[in-house]
């Protein structure tokens, strides 16, 4: 491995996009309106596109002749580095939009900082991604507002989703060894710098959406270190099904 920290750093960003895209992909044709189906598919597609760029780069860094698909499909569960937030289930549309929004705000801040990375490839991926992620955030934020400030039922459902998902937000800002090493090199993003800004922005929108900002002392974490929720195994058994069942083939 040429640069293990960089490799791990890339994966920790890319795996979020992959798993969130996978969750969105489950919804195709099952959403509340045709328009949300289109938007959901579109976001999923953007995320897969970003994932591919990251994994292609990671494969190059790794230098073992692997492909984006080897990295996407052929790791063990413990080797996926995504945060717990993105693997949470599509319980109802409030969860889908809540999960998306809580991730998008972070994601956009991350992209904005990654733009300044000393690593040109990462900066270039970020540059391309910013436009997409801005759109994602606008879409999910608008829906959080609609649902929060819609009917009594939708307000309750949206609040329920935010209350449940809130516990996964703190992990977004955890710094692994790879993160720290990459920050030190000017390649990685020091997410702690915008943690306060994140909670301010999210809280402002929640208030605007007539929702209560959860007060929570304890947070749930583990994904970044590869200890995932029990949902992850099922996500992977579908994701990896073809590559595991038909090894070493091209598609």
């Amino acid at each position, binding site marked *: 491995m040429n640069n293990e920290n960089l490799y791990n750093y890339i994966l920790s960003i890319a795996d979020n996009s992959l798993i969130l895209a996978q969750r969105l992909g489950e919804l195709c*044709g099952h959403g509340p309106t045709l328009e949300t189906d289109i938007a959901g598919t*579109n976001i999923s597609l953007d995320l897969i596109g970003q994932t591919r760029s990251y994994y292609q780069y990671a494969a190059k860094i790794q230098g073992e002749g692997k492909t984006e698909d080897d990295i996407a499909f052929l790791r063990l569960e413990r080797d996926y580095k995504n945060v717990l937030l993105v693997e949470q289930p599509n319980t109802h549309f409030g969860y889908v939009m809540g999960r998306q929004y809580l991730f998008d705000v972070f994601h956009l801040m991350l992209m904005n900082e990654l733009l300044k990375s000393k690593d040109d490839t990462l900066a270039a991926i970020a540059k391309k991604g910013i436009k997409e992620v801005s759109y994602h955030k606008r879409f999910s934020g608008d829906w959080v507002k609609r*649902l929060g400030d819609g009917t009594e039922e939708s307000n309750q459902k949206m609040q329920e989703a935010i209350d449940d998902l809130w516990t996964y937000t703190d992990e977004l800002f955890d710094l692994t060894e790879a993160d720290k090493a990459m920050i030190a090199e000017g390649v990685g993003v020091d997410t702690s710098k915008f943690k306060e800004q994140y909670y301010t922005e999210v809280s402002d929108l929640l208030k605007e959406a007539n929702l209560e900002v959860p007060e929570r002392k304890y947070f749930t974490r583990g994904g970044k270190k590869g200890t995932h929720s029990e949902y992850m195994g099922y996500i992977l058994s579908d994701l990896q099904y*073809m590559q595991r069942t038909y090894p070493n083939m091209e598609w």
Partner: protein
Amino acid sequence: RSLEEIFEARIARDEKIEPKDWMPEKYRKTHIRQMSQHAHSEIIGMLPEGNWITRAPSLRRKAALLAKVQDEAGHGLYLYSACETLGISRDELYEQLHSGKAKYSSIFNYPTVTWADMGAIGWLVDGAAIINQVPLCNTSFGPYARAMVRVCKEESFHQRQGYEIMLKLCNGTPEQKEMAQDALNRWWWPSLMMLGPTDDKSVHTEQSMKWKLKRKTNDELRQQFIDQTVPQADILGLTIPDPDLKRNEETGHYDFGEIDWEEFWQVVKGHGPCNKKRMKARVDAWENGAWVRDAAMAYAEKQEKKNLKKAI
């Protein structure tokens, strides 16, 4: 001359009929029926392919499949909009679909069993759809004709993509080639049925011809599909599951075996392998989404009031 005669003359001159133009009630109804059926088919058609999104074998294929399903939703959207210009709401159209009053293409009542089905659907199902649809780019009703131009362009991209999936499988390992052959075996006959009942059983043909909703008969279209597809199967090295299929040197066309019309009618009548599943998926999506649509409506009203207050 009567309004009707003027109208027919315009169509005969290849003028486009626009929503605000006078039109016979039967024209309006027929168009609502056909366009909404087409729109429903796009929406239901998302389900069998959506079934493989989480399991697509590579990121590239996953992205392409997402894009394709997204296109289908988009097609549904234009077509519903085109329908709405004829004075029916999207909710009414959904209601017709969910109650079983409106039909959708029967082909989507077959299950997608392996990844190769993503190839076969693109190659065969989209292929047959294009043959049905290309003539509609010149149909008489303007919004439909314009929607079809865009739809056909994208469908033809999908068709090439599906064929490319098959090609990759056929150039792959024996397991992959077998998967491709198996998919062809399962999708061939239903694809032929997509072109509709034989001419002697087809009820709408004459009127539809006049309105340019149809330019060729079902049997002609079917022959065209077969003539176009057989050489493509040859390139893939796959065998079409019809022992009677043979090039007729005299006509220059392929002769083919008997279609199992009993199966066709069974599926049309709601007894295909996935009719219930497809309908349940749509009705569940609609019912489970009611609170979301209500919320969006309530929110929009609140915003409007706020803006109104500001304006005053």
